[in-house]
Structures are given as C-alpha cells and as structure tokens.
C-alpha cells in the first residue's frame, strides 16, 4: 500500500545502531544517563498512549495519570512479596503481570470512557480531571479498610494498596543470564522493546479503518456519525487502547523503581504528559516522542546539571545566592515558559501538521484554480464498476415498493413545531424535491430521517422497515447517506481519507486486524483504496486525493461530500442544498451528476434546493413545506402553478408587493 510509510533504509539503520549502542557508549564514557533515559522512555510511552485519546480522537483527557497508576498498582499488587493484602504470598511473574496491567487499564479506560461519551470539550476534560483525582485518593484510602456493621466486622484493617506508604518492594523481572538487579542496561532494552512494539502498533492503527474513524470523530463527530462511524464504539476504543499503553508503562515503572506511592500519579503528571503531546504536536508520533524526550531529559538531566554548574560558579566567585541555587525547584516555571514560547511560535507543536502544506507551489495553485473554473462533466463511463455492482441488488422497477415512506412525522422544539404531520414517499429510483421557505423545517426533516433527531410521532420506513430510534451510523448502514447544507468535511484529513471514512461501515477490519494486518485485512484495505480512488476520479477530484480537505475550493468540497456519501453505498441519497454557492456552470454539472446517479445506479434522491431550475428540472415530484407542514405535493408543473406555493415560496408576481413592505 503506497500510503503506508516506506521506511528509508539508511536513516533507519543509523537510528537502530544509535539506540542499540547508546547504553554501552554511556557506560564507556561513564556518563550515567541510562537510568534517566529509561525513565524518559516510560513517560514517552505514556504520552504516546495519551496521544491516541487527545491527538487522534480529539478528546481532552486531563486525568491520564490515573491509568499510569492503575498499571503500576496492578504490578505492585500482583508482584510484591511483602504486602499485607489478600494477594500476599502469591507473587506473579513480571512477564505475566505486564499483560494483565494492560488489560486492567484498558478495562478501566472503558469504565471511565462510558460516562464521558455524551460530552465533549470542557465537560469531558472536567470528568477526566475528576477521575485523575479519584484514583490516587482511592489508592491512599484503600490501605486500611474496615467495614463495621453494628459491631460485626466482616472486613477489618484490610490493606489493599499499601495506603500512603505504597507498595515496597515490587518484584523485578527475571530472565536467564540477564541482571535486572544492579544494571540499568537491561531495563533500557526492555522499555526499548516495549516502546518499539507500541509504536509499531500505534502506527498501524493510525493508518487503518480505526485510525480514520478516530480522526473523523475528532474533526466532526456529527458528520462522522452520519458517515457510518459509530461514535460510542470508536471513542471507547480510543480510551481503552490509549489506557492499555499506560498499563505497560505503569507496570514497567513499578518494577524498575521497585516501590510505588500514590504521590507519583498526581494531577501534575497528567499535565506534564499533556504538555509532551502538545509540545511535540498532537497526532504526530515522532512529535510526541520528541516532546516527551525533551521534557523529561530537560527535567532529569539538564536542570540538575545546570544547578551543579551554577553552584560551582557561585562557589568560585563567592556569591552565596548562586552557590545554594536549586533550579529543579523551578521546573514548572521552565515547563510553563517553554510551552508558552512554543505555542506562540509553532502552535501546531514541534512536529505537528503544518497549517499550510509546504509542497504546493504557486504553479500548482494556478492549475488548481483553472480546474475550479471548469468542473469536469460527469461521465457514465467513469462511474466506478464496484458502485454499479453494489447498487444492482437494490435496483428495482419504479413500480416496486417505495424506498422511503414517511408517515405523520412530527417534531417540536419547546413550543415550536418544526415538522408537523409530514407525509413523503420516495419511489425506487425516484428524485423527490423538498422545497419551502427558509425555516420551514426542511433540514429538520433530514435530521429526523437520518437519526440525528428523534421524531415525537410518526413512521419512517426504509424498504418497509422502521428506522425510527436507530442511531445515525446505523441508518447509514441501512442505506441512507446525506450531505450537509453547510459543508461538513473532515477538514484536516486528506481528500482520499474523507472518502475512506465513507467506506467505514462497509469494511470489517478490527483492532487486531489493523495491527497485525492479516491477508484479509490487506485485501480489504487495498480494495477500499481502489474504490475511493475510483470515486474521486468519477467526481473529478483524483488529482487532489492527497490534499487536505480544507484546502479544496468550495465547489470541490461540495463534490467531495457527495463522493463521501456515495462511498457508504447508499440506496437513498439526501442532498441538502447541494448547489448553494455554486455558479450556473457548476450547478449544471452537479445536476447532471445527480441525474446520472439515478439513471445508472437506480439511486433514489431526496433533494433540498433553492435553485428552481435544478429542482424543477430533475425532480419527479416535489413536496413543499411551510411552517413545518406540507402545503403542496405534486409534479414540478403542478407545483409551479400552485397559488399557495407561489405566495409562500416562489414569489412570482408578488415581488413588487414585497418590496413595498
């Protein structure tokens, strides 16, 4: 797969040599930095896990250290010979516990994730913050538990966590011929292996069906839902997988330090981890590694070395103030200052996505603008073969049962009835226009059909089966796709990835599939990319597949949104003002495209549109809404002559009168 990063061999070989040779060089130089570097790598691993939640899925997590604590305490409780807990005396092997710790952290990730699913932004941050506070407090208080029910004490002075004193000692890993007791080098290699494995897994997850779903949620959760991505499942997976890496980091930390106390997992650790992610660049693996390394090494090595240096200067010059300085007390000052400076100079982080892609030069820009001026005419030959195949079973004679039947649909907001008792039938292969004055309830009607809103009353039948109460992504799965009035693309994803998110609900790769890439997943992914490329060629965007969606011109964005909707393999397409903001030529092209989709694929279309030449030109029948009720239904000719419609909407012959008001 061309997009999967090809490793440049020579720099990679140099990097591996450096990583492998470093501890021996350090020993030879007697620099004694391996200990600090190993600790730094623990924090890097934590930051990488946090990056899944914050960088990929876009959920601000202020309590990530809680998962670190859970990983560490899992190791502490299962692998300590002295603790007075019920687990006393049963010391489990490090090599087993590290996996258990990851699993426990992931499970708790789901637990903390569950209540946060309905909230975003500030609220989510506050909930995670609270969780981050609860865990250390719980650990402190679970060192001495007594349950006293009227003198009966089923539990007396039970020590589960070691309380304030923590767990000490924690067992070390054992391997034949490897000395984990007095030498830091085996620890270094162990975290290197864990880190490399984690990085490999994260890299593969990012470039998978799952990674695209995370980013789609980050960019626009509603649009992702309406493109077939299950937000609940996707967000929970982000929490669980993000937490599992901290399980590895936490258990490694506990075993290396051989002692843990609740104080090591306080709020400031969460913040430091977040700083690493933000400093390096949210969503960039390289950036997060760099950010984590910089912050920990600055803290562990540079600050203490500088303190020694300044004290030495102070003593030599006889300045008492300098001789007793301790810069490590100023670490938060330096973190804060550094972060402020970086955010001012490079708000996207050290290695984050640049706000402007650097590649495009002026000539390319000119070419792009020229293309915009002349959108390609849609051609039936260019229609992807797979889309024809996908559509063929759904293709029925127009006399067959309707695709969509809406009966008595009603929805109000407070006292305001937005949609009232609306009926609408879309026959197979039909194009139905939905028009009406601004604020008549057209978009609300779309939101009801696509599951973004629940009707107060009424039936919505897709191919005879009710879709009322289904979540939007499930309705996409049943075969209804939509576009939005104000374009809602995944702005910071490539044009190709936008279409691939559309295919999400037709793909099957799981988390394990994304990481291990068995042949079935590889075949599926290659086919998905082929399909997406075909679709882009069909709408004339194949040359811009690698471009960020936000960099497309307006008309191109409209066409990309339609391509994304088509990628879900719909039987019914809901278009909300697709030609708004388009000039007459672009409008013509899009009208042709809609007609072509119906003709070639038998696709049914429901169209909200204010350009009358479009609606009147391609609709079989038109429904007119005003103040939430259906005021007319009929063929374009009937609608054009309907006095009520003219008065409320078309305005022909009434303009002069309106000017007067």
């Amino acid at each position, binding site marked *: 797969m061309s997009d999967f990063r090809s490793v440049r061999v020579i720099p990679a070989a140099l990097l591996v040599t450096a990583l492998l040779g470093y501890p021996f060089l350090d020993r030879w130089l007697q620099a004694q930095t391996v200990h600090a570097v190993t600790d730094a790598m623990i924090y890097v691993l934590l930051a990488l896990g946090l990056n899944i939640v914050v960088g990929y899925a876009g959920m601000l997590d202020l309590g990530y250290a809680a998962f670190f604590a859970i990983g560490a305490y899992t190791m502490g409780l299962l692998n300590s010979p002295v603790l007075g807990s019920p687990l006393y005396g049963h010391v489990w092997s490090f090599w087993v516990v590290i996996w258990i710790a990851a699993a426990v952290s992931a499970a708790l990730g789901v637990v903390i994730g569950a209540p946060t699913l309905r909230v975003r932004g500030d609220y989510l941050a506050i909930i995670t913050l609270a969780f981050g506070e609860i865990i250390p407090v719980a650990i402190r208080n679970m060192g001495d538990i007594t349950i006293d029910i009227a003198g009966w004490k089923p539990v007396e002075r039970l020590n589960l966590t070691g309380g304030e004193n923590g767990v000490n000692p924690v067992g070390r890993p054992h391997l034949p011929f490897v000395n984990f007791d007095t030498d830091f080098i085996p620890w270094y290699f162990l975290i290197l292996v864990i880190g490399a494995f984690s990085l490999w897994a994260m890299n593969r997850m990012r470039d998978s069906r799952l990674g695209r779903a995370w980013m789609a949620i980050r960019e626009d959760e509603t649009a992702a839902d309406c493109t077939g991505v299950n937000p609940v499942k996707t967000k929970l997976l982000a929490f669980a997988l993000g937490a599992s890496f901290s399980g590895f980091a936490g258990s490694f930390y506990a075993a290396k330090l051989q002692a843990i106390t609740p104080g090591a997992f306080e709020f400031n650790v969460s913040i430091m981890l977040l700083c690493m992610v933000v400093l390096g660049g949210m969503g960039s693996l390289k950036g997060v590694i760099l950010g984590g390394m910089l912050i920990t090494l600055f803290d562990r090595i540079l600050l203490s070395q500088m303190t020694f240096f300044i004290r030495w200067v102070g003593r030599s010059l006889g300045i008492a103030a300098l001789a007793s300085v301790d810069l490590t007390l100023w670490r938060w000052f330096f973190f804060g200052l550094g972060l402020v400076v970086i955010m001012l100079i490079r708000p996207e982080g050290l290695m984050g996505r640049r706000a402007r*892609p650097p590649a*495009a030069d002026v000539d390319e*820009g000119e070419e792009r603008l020229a293309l*915009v001026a002349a959108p390609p005419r849609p051609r039936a030959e260019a229609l992807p073969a797979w889309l024809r195949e996908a559509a063929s079973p759904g293709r029925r004679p127009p006399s067959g049962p309707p695709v969509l039947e809406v009966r008595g649909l009603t929805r109000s907001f407070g006292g305001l009835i937005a949609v009232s008792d609306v009926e609408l039938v879309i026959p197979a292969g039909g194009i139905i226009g939905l028009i009406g004055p601004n604020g008549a309830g057209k*978009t609300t009607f779309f939101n009801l059909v696509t599951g973004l809103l629940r009707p107060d009353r009424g039936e919505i039948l897709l191919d005879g089966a009710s879709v009322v109460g289904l979540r939007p992504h499930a309705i996409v799965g049943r075969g209804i796709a939509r576009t939005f009035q104000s374009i809602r693309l995944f702005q910071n994803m490539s044009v190709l990835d936008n279409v691939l998110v559309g295919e999400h609900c037709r793909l099957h790769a799981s988390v394990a599939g994304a990481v291990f890439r068995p042949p079935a997943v590889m075949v599926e992914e290659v086919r998905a990319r082929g399909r997406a490329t075909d679709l882009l060629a069909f709408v004339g965007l194949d040359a811009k597949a690698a471009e960020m969606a936000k*960099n497309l011109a307006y008309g191109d964005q409209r066409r990309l949104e339609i391509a994304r909707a088509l990628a879900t393999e719909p039987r019914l397409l809901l278009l909300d003002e697709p030609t708004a903001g388009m000039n007459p*030529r672009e409008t013509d092209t899009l009208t042709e495209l809609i007609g072509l989709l119906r003709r070639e694929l038998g696709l049914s279309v429901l169209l909200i549109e*204010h350009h009358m030449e479009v609606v009147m030109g391609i609709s079989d029948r038109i429904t007119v809404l005003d103040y939430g009720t259906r005021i007319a239904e009929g063929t374009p000719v009937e609608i054009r002559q309907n006095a009520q419609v003219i008065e409320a909407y078309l305005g022909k012959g009434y*303009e002069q009168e309106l000017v007067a008001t």
Partner: protein
Amino acid sequence: MSAELLALQDVHAYYGNIRALKGVSLTVGRGEIVTLIGGNGAGKTTTLRTVIGLVRALRGTVTFDGRRIDRVPTHRIARLGIAQSPEGRRIFAPMTVLENLELGAFARTDREAIPQDLERVLALFPRLRDRLAQKGGTLSGGEQQMLAMGRALMAKPDMLLLDEPSMGLSPILVETIFDIIRNINQLGTTILLVEQNARMALRVAHRGYVIQTGRIVLQDAAAALLRSDVVRKAYLGEK
C-alpha cells in the same frame, strides 16, 4: 472627501498556500453598488477578506476614504465604517436573535438611533421578528443568513461588503434580498457585492468586475457586462 470610497491597488494576497490575488485593482465610488463576479476559487471572497483585514495584502494598497487600511487591524477597520456580511453565516449561536442584532450596533456612538434602525431591519426581515427571542444557533440556514445581514446593517456602515447574500435563500427571498440591497444603497450605503447569482448581481449593481484566477479580467458598467458574450457564457449559464 474623495469620490472613491474604497480603492484596491495592485493587491497580492495568499489564501492558505494558494496565491489567490495576483494584482487586483478595483475602486468603489461613494454611493455605488459594485459587484465582483467570478467562479469558485477565483478570489472573490479573498478580496473581501483583504479589505476587512482578515487576509493581509503582501503587496499593493487598500485605501478607504482616502486612508490606507491594509495594515490596520480588523476591529479598527470595522469602526471606520466597513461592515461585512454574511461572513459564512458567522452569527453568535448561543445568543438570541435580538442580542445578535444589538451586537451589530456595538461600535456605534449614536445610541438613540438604534431602536429605529432595529425596527427598520425587522421590517426588512419579518422572519427575524418571529424569532427575536430564539437562540441564533437554532435558526435554519437561510434565517441565519438573514440574521448576518441584519446584524451588518445594524452597524449602519458607510460601506457594506456582501459575500453571497442570496446563498441558501428561497426564490422569493432572493428577490427580496436584492430589493433590500438596492434599498439600503439608496439610503446612502456604498456596497461591494460578491455573488454567484451573477444575473441578479449585475441587475442591481452600477458597475461590475470579473475576476478569474486572482486577476481582474473585465470591468464595465453592469448593464454592459450583462450583455457581454464572455460573461453570459461563463457566469450566466447560457449556452
């Protein structure tokens, strides 16, 4: 007081990484309606954004009322008497329709005239009167469009920049909106109008410019542009 209220002289500007304006020169005389037409991505919106200071000109000058404004911050430009609408329908979603409209008049010093202007705006958009107490974010797309325009009018600007005011409006309202544009122009507001609906724009405007890939390729009286073959083929959809 010069006859030219707004003048762009050889303006070059980037939009993202695209060189969107490559030497745009245009003038808008006091009391005029001037329209700028062109395809998507031709540089129309970038031109408006350059005037209001949201995009900075790399080269060239922007003068308003005889004063250079190409290095003046956006909020100060707004206080000089330039208002833009609808700015991609950027209304204040958590505030009510009334509050949105009142905010339009935020920088005005003639507070006593504000209620009267509010009444005028509500007369122009009766739909907004029905929705005064509703939150801006709950309005439909077309209603937000009206609100954005109403808010711009509340600033009582000397110059109004209109970015596709007819977008997303019902046919009856499209007619109305162009009548409103003519109406406020007659009341003394100078207008620079960007529109996809070139036919309507050229009917209401005095003069027009055609912009293509960041360059002005044609300029003439609006009536003459309406008759021009190039414009009819490229922008009016005639074959």
